[in-house]
């Protein structure tokens, strides 16, 4: 099960809506072994595409170095689908390389950049095996603004 606070959930949804019709992507880091998604980092989709995403390679290194220095790990890895359901594509499954992470998919196909509900679903992807998991949104306040960043 993925437990995520309301502010982080909302920020992921807002990012997906903002970048629609291109796919949005990012991570939520948390203390190693805690399974607590605490620090949202929006990443640049280097592919800039409605059907593909890829973290910019320079940002990716900066992000991992930050996490290593802070004893964090990627708790959530998210991206959006802008024309299809919030289910991992074959490419998503083939390229998933963080077996401990929650892979979150948001689909903006219904309302695009506009207000309105989105599909927000979470999966574990281990050795090509996809398992959907429950998403629990908690009221617990998110970390202060100062701990957030838009780019690593």
């Amino acid at each position: 099960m993925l437990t995520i606070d309301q502010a982080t959930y909302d920020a992921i949804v807002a990012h997906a809506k903002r970048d629609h019709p291109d796919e949005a992507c990012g991570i939520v880091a948390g203390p190693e072994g805690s399974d607590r998604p605490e620090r949202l980092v929006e990443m640049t989709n280097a592919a800039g595409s409605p059907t593909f995403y890829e973290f910019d390679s320079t940002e990716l290194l900066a992000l991992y170095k930050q996490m290593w220095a802070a004893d964090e790990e990627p708790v959530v890895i998210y991206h959006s689908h802008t024309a299809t359901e919030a289910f991992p594509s074959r490419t998503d499954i083939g390229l998933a390389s963080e077996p401990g992470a929650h892979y979150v998919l948001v689909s903006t196909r219904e309302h695009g950049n506009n207000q309105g509900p989105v599909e927000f679903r979470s999966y574990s992807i281990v050795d090509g095996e996809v398992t959907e998991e429950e998403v629990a949104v908690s009221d617990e306040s998110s970390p202060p603004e100062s701990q957030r960043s838009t780019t690593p």
Partner: protein
Amino acid sequence: MTVEVRIPTILRTYTDGEKAVQSEGETLGGLIDNLESAHPGLRDRLIDDKDGQPDLRRFVNIYVNDEDVRFSGGLQAPVADGDQVVVLPAVAGG
């Protein structure tokens, strides 16, 4: 001469769980060949032999001293004593 190579979680099955290993070589390609002798199977996860020519796999990023080797010579990128090499799988999908 030794070079530290940072191994991502997904590839630590090849390094007995070690987060970083030491290797040596004068180029990234040579370094990876040496890694392979100590950690069999690792090379194949990093390199694709296209038409008999070894090339970095498309969805693996390798950095020498923070520089993405795609912009600094790929497998021919020079490495030197004390350099740090980081391997990170691309975070990508469709």
